């Protein structure tokens, strides 16, 4: 049918998402075609109905009040203080800013490593650590399609001591990512992959984890993705798996 190509894009047109240059020809077609204009009308009605029906739930007055108190900004401090205090405060701020800039970067990094370690431990403690159970990388990789906003490669493990156990979706600092679990001589190793730009902290390549974590870890950035490898296996095993990933990407 002649109108099929128009109808395929009708919803996009009604959402106002058709490119500007196509919009005029779309307007003209819908005005002149009875079938498309009728279809457009019913779809607009449907959109309006969903818009109304979708505004279904309202918070209770009690919950609203509770949340308003939480969100409300704290009252401002009075700044009617003497200039000496102001100078002293300015000096403290300068020193504080310089210190916190350094500590902020460090604590941001530490926090990321802590979260990665938490994710690794919590997942292994779970009764179902993986959502896709397979040793086949060609099964595990496509499982992430549509679940995370990027693609990545998994290494070939033939002639290595590593075996893939499966994968799951995960989140780090509100960022979705992939979590893969490997086995090497009964040690489980987690590999996390996230989009580099979505992570708040700056992490260098091969950053070492804080000593207190007692896990071997490795991290690097490659092709816009940030990789973390973590586990209680030896540092050499972690490094070997990291190298396999680096070679596959």
């Amino acid at each position, binding site marked *: 049918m002649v109108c099929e190509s128009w109808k395929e894009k009708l*919803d*996009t047109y009604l*959402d*106002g*998402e058709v490119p500007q240059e196509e919009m005029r020809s779309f307007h003209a077609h819908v005005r002149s075609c009875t079938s498309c204009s009728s279809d457009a009308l*019913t*779809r607009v*009605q*449907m*959109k309006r*109905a*969903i*818009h*109304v*029906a*979708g*505004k*279904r*739930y*309202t*918070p*209770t007055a009690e*919950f*609203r009040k509770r*949340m*308003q108190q*939480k*969100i*409300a*900004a*704290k009252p*401002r*401090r009075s*700044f009617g203080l003497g200039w000496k205090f102001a100078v002293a*405060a300015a000096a403290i*701020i300068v020193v*504080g*800013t310089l210190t*916190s800039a350094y500590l902020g970067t460090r604590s941001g990094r530490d926090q990321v490593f802590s979260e990665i370690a938490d994710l690794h431990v919590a997942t292994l403690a779970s009764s179902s650590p993986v*959502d*896709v159970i397979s040793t086949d990388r060609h099964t595990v990789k*496509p*499982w992430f*399609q*549509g679940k*995370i*906003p990027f693609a990545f490669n998994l290494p070939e493990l033939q002639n290595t001591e590593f075996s893939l156990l499966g994968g799951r*979706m995960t*989140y780090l*600092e*509100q*960022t*979705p990512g992939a979590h893969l679990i490997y086995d090497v001589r009964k040690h489980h190793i987690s590999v996390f992959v996230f989009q580099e730009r*979505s992570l*708040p902290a700056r992490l260098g390549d091969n950053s070492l984890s804080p000593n207190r974590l007692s896990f071997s870890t490795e991290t690097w950035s490659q092709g816009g993705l940030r990789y973390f490898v973590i586990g209680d296996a030896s540092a050499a095993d972690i490094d070997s798996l990291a190298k396999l990933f680096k070679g596959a990407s």
Partner: protein
Amino acid sequence: MDLSGATLQLDSFEELATPLFDQLYNFAHWLTQNREEAEDLVQETYVKALKGFSSFQLGTNFRAWIYRILRNTFLTSRKGLKVTMTVPLYFDEDEDIPEATIERDTPETILFARSSQESLQKAIDELPVHFREILLLCEVEEMSYQEISETLSVPIGTVMSRLSRARQTLRNQLQPHSQQQAGPRIDRGTNYGL
């Protein structure tokens, strides 16, 4: 960070977050399908958003940012994990959903003839969560595809295909309702009684 900066940040957060409260609650209730869980989800979202507000860049899209926090918080909650486990392992964004069988009485005409808002709400409730959320973000929150893409962390192409599938699934779901509720009456465009 100096004190006036912290106050300014709190003020900014309040200015940006307060107007979204009702919308976020509505969205949370649709996701959780339970008032208490929705309240917990909204509360946790605000706590996380306030905590992470220093990483938010003023001038960028706050709405998409806070919706993303809410959604991710939901997905990692017990209920969220449960519902996402029901998504098929090999969910294909491009796979076509078969059109329903009625030709002349479209779901839309049946729906509006009977002004059935409840049927529509029930049908939305029954949608898989990944369809429900995208439909609500588009039709209720009136987000652009770009905003939806940022909120769901998926490419715009995925937004378009998933939205299309969500709409098609909703249409298909509305048809059995209308057929069931129509009872023995012979509807136009069907072959009942033949």
